[in-house]
């Protein structure tokens, strides 16, 4: 590809098969959050009763915004900044904001994948001994206490070298391209993940005490349904889990051929992601039931039921107790690795595609450049003894404010400022086996954005009033609010830089349909 100014469009890469696209989209959606977030969120928000708001959120937000993203990506066929620029030239910064969120996430997401690699090995020897918590925070991470968090440059070698290997691996996958790298990797890794995870769950449900764990997980607390917080948690879970509204699904859909089948494929991807989450809930709570029985306590008294502590402290405790725990542990951490790496490459593709198109550089050069920059930041920031503290703060702010804010901004700009919702609706209908009803437009444009806006406002009020965790105020200001401010400023800056490809020489697929905004322009010109 030419690197000269205004280089012509190279032929756009393309998924080689519908199953390849489905596996890549499912691989992106199924990530660490499916395994370590969903079970804990469901349990603490009504148990079995949580499934009702969860399913409502799946249909009214998950499927709806998956199709919204796919319609944007498939119709405007480019990286996130190119797509938003094609919707309206003033919106390019929103695309870069989504790229920035993905960049921030990949720098720490890769670290957790690297931890999983180390723990696959550790579980074979139960290297944590009798104290998995002390091993994880002390021997492994050399972690500073959250109240004592400060800037430090002491890289921990045990984390750094597997992290470098992870970055080399994902950079090679990216450089091999959409069909040769991402599609091929997902065709191997996703079935492998499902088989390994099912093996782990089968072992978990046959453990003594598993029934008590499942009783705790599925027994409904009906009063939770009257709590708005529970409904917001259900929408948040679906939203974060499906990887919607921050560039990934837009970018993936831009590699579909023209004659794609969007709506039926969207339902498959959304339900596949939730099916895996439910499986994870069964596996995790069966395991916690076993642990509770061995400790002689109730399942509700077991601590560390979500997040990194569930995976790297609680599960190692169970692995130590269990006969044949080494195999169980290996399957668990291998599953974490596979779920993490398939999501990591999807995040990286958002950044790599944007850089390639903006600066007119080849796929290989773009992938290597992004891999080196992001990998270096990842090692320098997150493999230090302060890594977990920074990861925790950045993750909270980027997800709960950055991604939700990006979603609200996307709906407001695309649906209300550019008035493209009818056009996207028509695009989905014309690129699906059957047209989709008006329900899609009602939920995409009106009802679900209100829930997302409520989530955003409540989270911001809580963070401003109470801060986050035990961290010093300056620490959350610098790494939480500061990260978001940096992404915002960089987004605006990048949107001003001239394109080195012909981004504006683009015609979307003719729908035989005139969007409302264009009708208004015609009316005004008469």
């Amino acid at each position: 590809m030419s690197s000269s100014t205004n280089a012509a469009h190279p032929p756009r890469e393309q998924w080689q098969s519908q199953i390849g696209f489905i596996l890549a989209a499912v691989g992106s959606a199924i990530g660490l959050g499916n395994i370590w977030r969903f079970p804990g969120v469901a349990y603490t928000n009504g148990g079995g009763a949580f499934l009702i708001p969860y399913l409502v959120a799946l249909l009214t937000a998950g499927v709806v915004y998956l199709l919204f993203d796919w319609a944007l990506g498939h119709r405007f066929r480019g990286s996130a900044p190119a797509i938003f620029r094609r919707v309206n030239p003033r919106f390019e910064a929103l695309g870069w904001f989504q790229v920035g969120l993905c960049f921030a996430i990949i720098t720490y997401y890769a670290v957790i994948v690297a931890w999983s690699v180390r723990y696959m090995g550790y579980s074979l020897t139960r290297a944590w001994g009798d104290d998995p918590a002390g091993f994880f925070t002390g021997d492994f991470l050399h972690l500073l206490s959250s109240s004592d968090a400060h800037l430090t440059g002491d890289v921990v070698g045990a984390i750094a070298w597997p992290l470098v290997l992870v970055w080399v691996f994902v950079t090679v996958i990216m450089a091999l391209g959409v069909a040769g790298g991402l599609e091929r990797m997902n065709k191997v890794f996703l079935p492998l993940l499902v088989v390994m995870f099912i093996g782990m769950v089968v072992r978990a449900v046959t453990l003594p005490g598993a029934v008590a764990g499942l009783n705790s997980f599925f027994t409904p607390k009906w009063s939770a349904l009257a709590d708005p917080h529970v409904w917001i948690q259900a929408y948040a879970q679906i939203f974060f889990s499906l990887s919607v509204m921050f560039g990934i699904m837009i970018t993936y859909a831009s590699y579909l051929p023209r004659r794609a089948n969007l709506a039926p494929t969207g339902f498959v991807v959304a339900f596949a992601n939730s099916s895996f989450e439910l499986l994870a809930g069964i596996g995790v709570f069966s395991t916690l039931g076993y642990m509770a029985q061995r400790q002689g306590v109730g399942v509700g008294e077991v601590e560390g039921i979500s997040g990194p502590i569930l995976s790297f402290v609680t599960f190692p405790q169970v692995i130590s107790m269990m006969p044949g725990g080494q195999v169980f542990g290996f399957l668990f951490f291998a599953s974490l690795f596979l779920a993490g790496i398939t999501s990591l490459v999807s995040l990286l593709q958002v950044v790599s595609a944007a850089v390639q198109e903006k600066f007119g550089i080849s796929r290989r050069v773009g992938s290597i450049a992004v891999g080196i920059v992001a990998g270096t930041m990842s090692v320098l920031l997150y493999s230090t003894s302060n890594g977990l503290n920074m990861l925790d703060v950045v993750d909270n702010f980027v997800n709960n404010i950055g991604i939700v804010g990006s979603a609200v901004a996307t709906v407001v700009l695309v649906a209300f400022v550019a008035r493209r919702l009818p056009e996207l609706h028509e695009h989905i209908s014309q690129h699906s086996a059957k047209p989709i009803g008006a329900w899609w437009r009602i939920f995409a444009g009106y009802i679900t954005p209100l829930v997302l806006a409520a989530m955003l406002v409540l989270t911001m009020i809580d963070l401003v009033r109470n801060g986050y965790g035990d961290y010093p105020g300056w620490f959350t200001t610098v790494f939480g609010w500061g990260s978001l401010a940096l992404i915002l400023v960089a987004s605006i800056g990048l949107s001003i830089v001239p394109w080195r490809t012909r981004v504006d020489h683009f015609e979307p697929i003719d729908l035989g349909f005139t969007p409302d905004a264009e009708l208004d322009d015609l009316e005004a010109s008469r």
Partner: protein
Amino acid sequence: MTPLALAMLVFSLVLVWGGLAVAIINLRKNPMPYSDEL
């Protein structure tokens, strides 16, 4: 398992995994030629 927990387990499996099965059947019943043309 308690009857209530078991009922919720079955309800969840039927809706989520059943939903996946229906979605896959629907995709297979409504195939659209996957074209390489651009």
